[in-house]
């Protein structure tokens, strides 16, 4: 193989310009593929991480009861009976949270579970009032099913844990109400008002949560929301959150409560991301196809220009496989260089994009572009470009190697 590689290398050096064009195509294709992947999946991953960190992997919520009716067929004997499901009756919330919590924790996939009582209230500061979503939690439990600790921008969770008269408040809501750490806050619900102090301000990155959500101690929330026993839902995190849909289906069957995995709760936004991904894949596909076509053309021309050398080598006893190997080796040499340079370019561009200032305030908040760093993007790019270059170099070489050498020499003489 050393001989074949040497011939390939010499041939390559003799056609520097054409090979540089091919190299540029590979570098561009690889870098673009990786950057596009990093960008497309960046925002999606950011959103999913924020959802997991705030709402957990799944929620066990309303209790349901299957409505079964029995039909009797009017046959001769009249004893053929069929049970039919006629939908479900839902009872809002969880009536016996302690029992359900115990059952949830018996699932081996469950990493953490937190009982939550949720209700609407009005938050009033000295400046203005705004609607908010009160979430009563046990802090220790909730930290196991969320990234709340990491989401705290200011203040102290310890203060919140010690003092039930304190709240954790979303950054946007705090901003709208001009609240800071230690500020007083009144929560009004059902004609009752209670005074609290801001212990900490958190920011999830998801606009919807940050402008509405307030965390209270669970017992305090029960008082405020006049709900002494029931809970709204149990938030659950799993060892593998990506399996939430599978675990949820199993849990629902066992617990007879509606269990919503994050894939279902965030279906709308996930579909938006999926659509964007498809759109990006189409654009990438077109660009990569153009780059591949360029590579194919360049190699086809190089092979055509080398027909005389092919005939010379064949006359000396080089086989068709040798000829194909020489040109495929050339393609692989350019590919190797293209992959290294393309990956380096991708790292540099992705790094640059990640630092690109951008003001996003919508389904989530970001002050710079969000990218996803994944080794798999680089692996996919390497596999894809290898396949493309293999095809682009193999096909014209095989075609040229098939021709009888005399035919080429006759044309070249």
């Amino acid at each position, binding site marked *: 193989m050393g001989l074949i590689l040497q011939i390939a290398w010499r041939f390559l050096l003799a056609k520097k310009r054409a090979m540089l064009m091919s190299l540029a195509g590979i570098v561009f294709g690889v870098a673009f593929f990786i950057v596009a992947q990093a960008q497309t999946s960046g925002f999606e991953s950011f959103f999913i991480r924020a959802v997991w960190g705030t709402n957990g992997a799944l929620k066990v919520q309303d209790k349901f009861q299957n409505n079964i009716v029995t039909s009797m067929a009017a046959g001769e004997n009249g004893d053929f009976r069929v049970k039919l499901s006629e939908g479900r009756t839902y009872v809002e919330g969880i009536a016996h949270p302690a029992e359900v919590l115990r059952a949830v924790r018996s699932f081996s996939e469950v990493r953490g579970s937190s009982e939550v009582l949720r209700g609407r209230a009005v938050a009033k500061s000295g400046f203005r009032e705004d609607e908010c979503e009160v979430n009563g939690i046990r802090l220790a439990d909730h930290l196991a099913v969320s990234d709340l600790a990491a989401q705290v921008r200011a203040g102290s969770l310890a203060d919140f844990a010690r003092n039930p008269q304190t709240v954790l408040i979303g950054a946007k809501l705090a901003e709208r109400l001009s609240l800071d750490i230690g500020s007083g806050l009144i929560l009004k619900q059902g004609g009752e008002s209670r005074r609290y102090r801001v212990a900490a301000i958190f920011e999830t990155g998801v606009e919807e949560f940050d402008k509405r959500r307030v965390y209270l101690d669970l017992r305090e929330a029960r008082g405020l929301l006049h709900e002494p026993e029931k809970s709204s839902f149990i938030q659950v995190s799993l060892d593998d959150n990506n399996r939430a849909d599978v675990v949820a289906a199993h849990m629902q069957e066992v617990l007879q409560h509606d269990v919503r995995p994050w894939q279902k709760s965030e279906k709308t936004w996930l579909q938006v991301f999926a659509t964007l991904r498809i759109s990006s894949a189409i654009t990438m596909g077109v660009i990569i196809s153009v780059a591949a076509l360029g590579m194919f053309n360049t190699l086809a021309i190089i092979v055509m220009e080398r027909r005389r050398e092919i*005939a010379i080598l064949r006359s000396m006893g080089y086989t068709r496989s040798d000829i194909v190997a020489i040109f495929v080796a050339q393609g692989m040499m350019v590919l190797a260089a293209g992959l290294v340079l393309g990956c380096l370019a991708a790292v540099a561009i992705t790094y640059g994009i990640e630092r690109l200032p951008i003001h996003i305030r919508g389904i989530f908040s970001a002050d710079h572009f969000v990218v996803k760093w994944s080794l798999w993007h680089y692996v996919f790019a390497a596999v894809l470009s290898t396949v493309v270059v293999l095809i682009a170099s193999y096909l014209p070489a095989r075609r040229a190697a098939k021709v009888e050498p005399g035919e080429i020499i*006759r044309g070249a003489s």
Partner: protein
Amino acid sequence: MTGALPQSIELLRAENLRRTLGADESKTKALRGVSLALQSGRSYAVTGPSGCGKSTLLYLLGLLDRPDEGEIFLSGKSVARADDTHRTRLRMEKIGFVFQFHFLLPEFTALENVMLPMRRLGKLAPDEMRERAETLLKNVGLAERMNRSTGHLSGGEQQRVAVARALANEPSIILADEPTGNLDERNSKMVFELLASFAHDAPRAVLVVTHNPDLAARCDEVLRMKDGLFATA
């Protein structure tokens, strides 16, 4: 064919070779039933006007092309319809080519060009290959230029490198297509003498396609072609 020496052996025999070139309206019958035999220790010249089928015959004998009809026997074995791998192996081991335009690889030095067939055959150790290539280049008068890129050699020198390359694997048959076609008289003479000595120094055969009547006259046998047939046939 006649005139073989008593001790010579038949290296190659072709029977009733026919070959049509081109397609549709441009179809030309290049060979119309040519037969010949090459004996060891002899040199042959194939002469004739342009387009009479000389080169086509040479490519068929050298297994670089396939006949439409007819048979070729190399060391007594039928090879015209052998598979490509077998024919490639025979070219590597038994046949050496010298083309009109030398057809060297310009990316390699003279020495490397001569070593290319040996490296593919792989019978010798690297040092032995180098040594043999150096000897061959010395024999063709290129001892001082063997490490030069072939692009930096004159036409005559390039053709001498091509001769050395053709001899690299010690083939039993040398086929030369207008080997002196682009050379001046001095270089033509040198190249021809190299080829002729090759045939006479060992049990080998040399077949030269040429327009040059002086060159042809110096071969042991002259075969004149016209319209795809030997004129003497």
